[in-house]
């Protein structure tokens, strides 16, 4: 206890270097834990881009491709599935709900998704969040459209505006070659921000997709003058023939694997079903190597912080030779001298850890909403992860070990100085 009090007073006496050292360690700790939290947050956000969906079902093809176009609105499906097939699975006794997606059209670079009410009722992201409306309501008429929040913000649309859908997917901001110009849509509402790909799409009814293509034959628009006028089209008169994919929730998680197998072996039509969580993980592994690079960098920052502490302790030793001689004279043995310096170094690194953790949580709490808003990255505020604790422990232990270097030097000094100190 005497040593602890000595170490404390000694550090307090050198308040400037102590503060600077604690800050440099604290900042590097904050960086390390911060990066770790962002990593976890990024992975979590990514894994929870879509939640509570047990299976994604589409025409047979690559599983990654199915995930990309169904969840991230990237790429396109090679094949559609018939509505009959969809209805078969929709009414399957093991299925709780389904959300159909009909893809292929776009508006100024944003994908248009044909879906039904189930999307607004059952779709979940980040574990349990559902789709809500910022303004307006969900599309009820064939020619109504709900906008993802990014779409509305980027294009400056609001409820009541007219939107013309393009056949196929045009580059962002570009105009498609074939517009469904004869059948404009009215914005019925804007979705609240989700910070997921949901924000970057427009949502219409399945019948709306049928409606814009009603008079098309073989992928080509009708000749001028032969179009079916929009006024003649009602929701009831529209028949949905096919969809692109659908999300599925089984009644019990135990059924999921059985259902997946059943869907994959469906004889009426070649289908595939993927478990989004697994495929997301697969995808994350391919893009996640960047996080390792980040971790390596933060480790170097920690090393620099600890070296700073070593330098400050080591350089203080010369001016402390006197102090060591006094301690020796009043009966402190070499062991106590070494302990004192190791203790100081340990205290510095522990204080740095505490400051760093404080900084991380302070900053996280302050900026969490802003980061979520702007980057779609939800950084969880939770006690340090196992990895976080290991990092903290490692830094404290490293501080302890590094303390032996100046301690050894001080010990050598006291041996050569004895009780005399040349000043």
């Amino acid at each position, binding site marked *: 206890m005497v040593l602890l009090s000595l170490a404390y007073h000694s550090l307090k006496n050198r308040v400037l270097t102590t503060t600077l050292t604690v800050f440099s360690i604290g900042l590097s700790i904050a960086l390390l834990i911060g990066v770790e939290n962002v990593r976890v947050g990024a992975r979590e956000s990514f894994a929870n881009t879509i939640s509570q969906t047990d299976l994604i079902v589409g025409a047979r093809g690559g599983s990654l491709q199915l995930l990309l176009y169904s969840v991230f609105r990237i790429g396109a499906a090679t094949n559609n599935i018939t509505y009959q097939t969809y209805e078969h699975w929709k009414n399957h006794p093991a299925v709780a709900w389904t959300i159909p997606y009909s893809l292929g059209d776009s508006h100024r670079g944003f994908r248009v998704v044909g879906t039904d009410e189930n999307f607004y009722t059952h779709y979940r992201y980040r574990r349990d969040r559902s789709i809500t409306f910022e303004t307006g309501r969900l599309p009820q008429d064939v020619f109504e459209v709900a906008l993802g929040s990014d779409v509305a913000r980027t294009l400056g649309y609001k409820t009541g505006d007219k939107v013309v859908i393009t056949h196929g997917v045009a580059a962002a901001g570009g105009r498609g070659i074939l517009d469904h110009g004869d059948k404009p849509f009215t914005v019925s509402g804007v979705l609240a921000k989700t910070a997921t790909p949901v924000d970057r799409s427009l949502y219409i009814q399945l019948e709306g997709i049928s409606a814009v293509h009603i008079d098309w034959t073989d992928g080509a628009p009708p000749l001028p003058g032969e179009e079916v006028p929009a006024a003649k089209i009602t929701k009831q008169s529209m028949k949905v023939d096919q969809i692109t994919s659908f999300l599925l929730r089984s009644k019990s998680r135990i059924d999921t694997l059985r259902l997946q197998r059943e869907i994959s072996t469906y004889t009426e039509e070649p289908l595939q079903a993927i478990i989004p969580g697994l495929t997301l993980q697969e995808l994350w592994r391919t893009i996640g190597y960047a996080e390792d690079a980040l971790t390596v960098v933060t480790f170097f920052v920690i090393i620099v912080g600890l070296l700073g502490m070593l330098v400050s302790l080591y350089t203080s030793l010369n001016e402390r030779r*006197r*102090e060591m001689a006094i301690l020796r004279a009043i009966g402190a043995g070499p062991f106590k001298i070494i302990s004192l310096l190791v203790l100081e170094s340990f205290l510095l690194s522990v204080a740095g850890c505490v400051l760093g953790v404080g900084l991380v949580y302070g900053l996280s709490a302050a900026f969490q909403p802003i980061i979520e808003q702007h980057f779609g990255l939800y950084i969880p505020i939770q006690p340090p992860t196992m990895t976080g604790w290991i990092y903290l422990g490692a830094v404290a232990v490293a501080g302890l070990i590094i303390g032996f270097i100046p301690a050894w030097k001080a010990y050598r000094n006291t041996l050569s100085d004895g*009780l005399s100190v040349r000043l």
Partner: protein
Amino acid sequence: MSEAPSAIRLTDLHFSYGKGPEILNIPSFEVKAGEKVFLFGPSGSGKTTLLGVLAGVLGGYTGQVEVLGRDVAKLSGSQRDAFRGSHLGYIFQLFNLIPYLSVMENITLPCRLSAERRGRLNGTPMEQAAHAVAKRLGIDELLGKRVTNLSVGQQQRVAAARSLLGTPELIIADEPTSSLDYDHREKFLELLFESCKAAESTLLFVSHDRSLMHLFDRQLSLPEINKAGA
């Protein structure tokens, strides 16, 4: 005096730093318990080295060094440290105090480091004992202060108080007065003597300044007893 036990007894002491020249060669030197001995010699005559040997900080000598009846060479390193902390008081020439501790903390530090020395307070609380010693030395007003705010004279008195607390049998003072002016020196010595007498401590006082030597029981010239280099 001759019937009193000896506080320090050196026999045939030889010491050199590493393979360097011999610094100390003292055939015989004795200080009786309760004596106030003035040891003088010019700089470089081996004063500080001798004190290092006596305090058990410097090892590697030949011959016999007995301090308070104990053969220092037979003690292990940590035993020597404990022995020094518990039985010896040491006053330096200058900068005796740990700068980041208060006056009180400086005075009580040896007692806090050594349980044995704390035991010698006979149950008196440390702070109370420190206060008594400080009062005798006239520095009880300063106890709460930071040592960096003290004058040199005050610092030396604090150092004396520290060396005296816990009534160590032997006080070693290495030119404690050389940074004081003449009036303060005499005053300091008077206080030191009084305190040593109260604590029944032996005092070995080393200096090159002989103007104070008449105040001591016995005066010794280190060059006379040290045959090294002769």
